[in-house]
């Protein structure tokens, strides 16, 4: 099985530093911050890819380009199948709606209609372990509970491609185990997962391949253990 599900082809993206309306007309200018610099890689269907690197190296931006949130300045990104991005702790959730209403809203944002969401609701409730809290307003939730709900909704929708940005480190150890199992489950269902995380233990145990990024470029792409070594090497050089 060698079907490609994500192809990132020479993608560059820069963020404007100066705030001027005229900048919007330009493609890019010299004093922009180059967040991604000619990134090129592909992910096969069913593969779990990890991305590591220090803060601000462009990991999250890369995920957002794959999810279609940012449009690359140069190059293009191709994918096959439904993508869902899981980022931050419960962002996009609204405090005064109940957990159930938020799940419906989040589900519809990710492109599902009411009928599908109704069918998925029992699964979401049981996976998130919220039980009776599901009908309480979201502002009463703890950060971990919000994150659990987010992961429950995003994974219940069975996206063909799941992009995860730093959310697996949340929750108690039992829930961590559960989310790890869920991801492995998805992979078994031939889903593709791209994972950004700082927890290297998790990376080595579930990723088939790890990319090490630094300053918007790919430094290493391959075996997880070697990628982590490459990360530590570059950190040592820096110091």
């Amino acid at each position: 099985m060698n079907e490609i599900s994500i192809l990132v082809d020479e993608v560059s993206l820069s963020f404007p530093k100066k705030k001027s309306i005229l900048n919007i007309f330009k493609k890019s200018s010299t004093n922009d911050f180059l967040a991604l610099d000619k990134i090129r890689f592909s992910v096969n269907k069913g593969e779990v890819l990890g991305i590591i690197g220090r803060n601000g190296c462009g990991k999250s931006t890369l995920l957002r380009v794959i999810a279609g949130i940012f449009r690359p300045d140069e190059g293009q990104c191709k994918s096959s199948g439904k993508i869902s991005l899981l980022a931050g702790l419960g962002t996009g959730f609204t405090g005064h709606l109940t957990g159930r209403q938020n799940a419906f809203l989040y589900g519809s944002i990710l492109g599902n209609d009411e009928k599908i969401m109704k069918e998925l609701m029992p699964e979401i409730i049981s996976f998130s372990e919220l039980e009776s809290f599901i009908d309480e307003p979201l502002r009463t939730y703890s950060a971990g509970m919000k994150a659990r709900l987010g992961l429950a909704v995003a994974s219940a929708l069975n996206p063909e491609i799941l992009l995860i940005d730093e959310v697996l480190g949340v929750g108690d150890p039992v829930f961590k185990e559960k989310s790890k199992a869920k991801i492995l489950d998805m992979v078994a269902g031939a889903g593709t997962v791209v994972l950004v995380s700082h927890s290297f233990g998790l990376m080595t145990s579930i990723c088939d391949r790890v990319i090490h990024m630094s300053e918007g470029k790919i430094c290493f792409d391959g075996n997880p253990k070697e990628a982590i070594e490459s990360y530590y090497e570059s950190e040592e050089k820096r110091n």
Partner: protein
Amino acid sequence: MGEGLEHRLEVVGERSSSILSPLSSASILFYHQYLIQNLIRKDIKARYSNSFLGYAWTVLEPALLSAVYYFLFIMIADDPDPLYAVWVIIGVIVWSCFGKCLQSTVSSLTRNASTIHLVYFPRLIFSFASVGSTIWITLMSSIVLIPLLFAYDLEISWQLLLVPIAILLAAFNAVGLGLLLAPANCVNRDIEHLIRFIVRAGFFVSPVMWTWDMAMKRGWAADVVIWNPMVFPITLARDGFLGKVTEFPMNGIMISIGWGLAMWIIGTMVFNRFERSAVKYL
């Protein structure tokens, strides 16, 4: 690179042609109606959560405002039209629909920055959802007109339907201009402040506290005022309340509808073209 199969791949986030965007933007309304409905529901719930009177505020707000303006008018001019209070209520309802639609569309990208960073869907939806909830709330607040019909012994006629039509037209006149400015507002929030001023100033330049008939009595004023695209919707709603189809001059009707259409075409094209680079500023 692997020698994988690439035939199923689609380019992520390819921009559709700018020229077609007036049409493709309208089709988004249909394709994403479930999501838009959900966002509207969320918006309305958010607006009235934690308030004891809740939805009653939609009716109370224009009613109280009109009471103030009515008092003011009696102080200034001593022989008011008996229906003047109603004219002000209708003016306030239709104008604030325009104003709120305009402001919420201009700030639709900046207000939703956290959602924009989380998931991609056509960003026009934020604007459509806020306009939708404004229309809904405006329609609810126009319920205040029904008891007034009885109070002034007016008949219930089909022409009353012109009131919601006028409200929709007011919203439509706002959307295009809002979409035109929304991407620029991501870069410089000055646009938002400018629009807030325009909405406040426009309140006096538009027939909220005066009527088209008053302008006609002044002769030259009517020739100037007719260029304001909001004169027609407000007059249409007032005439509808009286149970007559409007006698507003045809060229004024064309100006109002033409403005809405032209702004929709320009606004959607600009939004489609610049929205992607604008969100990088959020």
